[in-house]
């Protein structure tokens, strides 16, 4: 039978439609589509049924209802009379705050440790290795508990606060530092800063042009520093020192005034930074090791100093290797910030969970979570892709 079929197929030059990849493709896709649609239809049917049974009205109307709960660390004014929608905005802002702070600190720490792992110094190399090995091999949730339960809860009562210079305090209720209170004419300083930055950019452009034309270098860095520090300082003096500090003061049971960073935020921020820094360190190490040795040797042969070699030859090439995995670490940090719910920091997931328990609007809350995190991921990706394209090899 089979051989006859084959013979006939060869004879006529046609294949049975059963064996035509195109027909098969269409068939399987149709099958998948039908199964998928059926599955979704079944789920929606069940959900509608279940929601009716539980008397939950679907839709986003609940966002305008009164929240009825309080959020202790809100960046925008929030009371229990505010709407549920506003509480979610508070959550998004807190997620953003801890993510941005964490990303900055983790990058700095990660680069330092990553370079430390390649140091010629044996001791530094080993210390960095132990750090990376420890943090890469324990769960981030454990690191968060470690900071929250282990370290910050054994801090002293407010009365025995640990004093730091410049009016900063640390105790079991968090970290306190002075609030900046800007006085009259303080806007002059801001204006001066903007002008200084504009001048620094101008100097940089002119210096590059001159170096291209004549080969002479101009000390851009020091000029820029002088401009950016000097001009605002001058404006500050001229405006009559319009700045005062609201230093936290110790009263009987508590510290008053100043800015308070709650232990929840502090431990989440520290643990996310320390945890992600270990991963970033490995990425940085791989990136630097990925630059061929000949590059730095050639640079030395041209007479460049080690510092210049690192800045102009090694780092720009290492960045090309570093940026893509670095992006995914940033995204991981942002997603890990959702573990705030474990220690009660009011981020998007924690507040969403509270709302979910109160209203039972599971689908809407999960949809909001997904939309926000997907949106944020997309933003970070777009930015890092732009940065990556800027850093990419320009081939002539």
């Amino acid at each position: 039978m089979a051989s006859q079929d084959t013979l006939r197929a060869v004879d006529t030059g046609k294949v049975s439609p059963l064996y035509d990849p195109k027909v098969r493709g269409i068939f399987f896709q149709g099958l998948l589509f039908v199964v998928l649609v059926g599955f979704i239809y079944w789920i929606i049917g069940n959900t509608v049924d279940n929601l009716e049974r539980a008397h939950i009205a679907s839709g986003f109307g609940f966002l305008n209802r009164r929240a009825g709960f309080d959020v202790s660390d809100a960046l925008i004014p929030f009371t229990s009379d505010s709407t549920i929608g506003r509480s979610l905005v508070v959550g998004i802002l807190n997620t953003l705050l801890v993510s941005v702070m964490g990303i900055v600190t983790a990058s700095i720490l990660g680069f330092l440790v990553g370079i430390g792992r390649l140091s010629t110094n044996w001791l530094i190399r080993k210390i960095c290795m132990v750090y990376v090995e420890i943090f890469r091999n324990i769960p981030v949730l454990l690191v968060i508990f470690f900071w929250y339960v282990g370290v910050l809860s054994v801090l002293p009562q407010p009365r025995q606060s640990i004093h730091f210079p410049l009016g900063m305090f640390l105790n079991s209720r968090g970290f306190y530092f002075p609030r900046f209170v800007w006085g009259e004419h303080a806007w002059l300083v801001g204006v001066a800063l903007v002008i200084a930055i504009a001048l620094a950019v101008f100097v940089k452009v002119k210096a590059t042009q001159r170096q291209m034309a004549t080969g002479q270098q101009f000390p851009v860095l020091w000029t820029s520093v002088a401009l950016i520090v000097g001009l605002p300082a001058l404006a500050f003096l001229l405006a009559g020192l319009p700045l005062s500090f609201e230093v936290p003061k110790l009263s009987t049971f508590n510290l008053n005034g100043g800015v308070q960073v709650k232990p929840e935020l502090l431990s989440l921020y520290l643990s996310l930074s320390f945890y992600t820094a270990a991963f970033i360190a490995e990425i940085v190490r791989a990136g630097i090791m990925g630059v061929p040795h000949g590059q730095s040797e050639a640079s030395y042969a041209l007479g460049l100093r080690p510092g210049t070699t690192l800045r102009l030859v090694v780092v720009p090439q290492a960045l090309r290797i570093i940026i893509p995995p670095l992006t995914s670490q940033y995204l991981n940090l942002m997603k890990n910030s959702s573990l705030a719910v474990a220690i009660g920091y009011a981020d998007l997931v924690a507040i969403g969970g509270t709302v979910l328990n109160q209203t039972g609007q599971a689908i809407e809350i999960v949809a909001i979570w997904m939309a926000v995190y997907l949106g944020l991921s997309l933003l970070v990706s777009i930015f890092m892709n732009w940065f990556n394209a800027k850093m990419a090899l320009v081939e002539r």
Partner: protein
Amino acid sequence: MQEHDLSFVRTEMAIAEAPPRSAQGTGHWLRTNLFSSVTDSVLTIVGVVVLILIIPPLVDWLFLSAQWTGTDRTFCATTVQGGIRPDGWSGACWAFVGDKLQQFIYGRYPFSERWRVDLVAALFVVLLVPLLIPKVPRKGLNALLLFIIFPIVAFFLLLGGWFGLPHVETPLWGGMMITLIVSFVGISASLPCGIILALGRRSRLPVVKTVCVAFIELIRGVPLITVLFMASVMLPLFLPAGTYFDKLLRAIVGVAIFASAYMAEVIRGGLQAIPKGQFEGADSLGLTYTQKMRLVILPQAIKLVIPGIVSEFIGLFKDTTLVSIIGMFDLLGSVQQNFHDATWATAQTPMTGLVFAGFIYFVFCAGMSRYSMFMERRLDTGHKR
């Protein structure tokens, strides 16, 4: 006639002279590795100071001042806190870990039935170890036993209710047991699901591709905790009313879905690294799609991404801690649950429990990563491009 006078021809090598004193021994090592320049010396001194600040207090807390035996909190509390220790004492309370160890391993699984858990664990080790040692033969049978037969046996043994074994409901399960169950199921489900999703994403069929891409990107874009919340809150909504869906199973479904999406991306990396000629070669031999993938493409692709797969496994193992947030008591969850246990609540208890849990996770994760390095070296056929 001039005579060739070879007055001296050395017949044996001269004995090599020892390197100069400055280039050997401890002094040389110190000079090159710790004090090669001024900056280097400063860094070394800073490093030593940091170590002096960290190591002695740590050793003291972990071992010297630690309380090793005891029956309740008084052994680990200072006199002010109602204990027997002097004021200002600080040390690990290992007595707490010793007392609660059973709970950290089995959760609230009934005492008389714990042999079942031990048996499952023993079976697991007996099946896993030969699979990990490359020299042991019959890998196929071994894998079949571990991934198909073992889960069925384990399911009936742990849950009970059959063959005269008392039924133990899952809310009683806990500790290390849950951590290992969730990781094992997650790992064994995520690999095949990940392969299917990765193949789907690389497919030429637009509908298949779109569905896979949408699934992968949706799951990868959100935190695991939202997926777990979704699994625990929304799965009951999606199923017909009255369907009972076990809480542990919901957590496992959440973890497996999440891990599959990540695994798919790792495997896609491997698939993309396979040269086009391999696909074409398989096609020209007349292999079907399944044969082509199973016999030619996947073995090469998976071998390429073994480090990635293992690091996904490690990530998954660490991520199982998140099930404690949706109310399961895995290792971390049961440690945390005991912080406020009235018998043991002292200032030292939480830190001790966390250090213990951290140590366990570290041993497992470091073990996995060492094994992956070993396999990487073994599988390195020199075909790296």
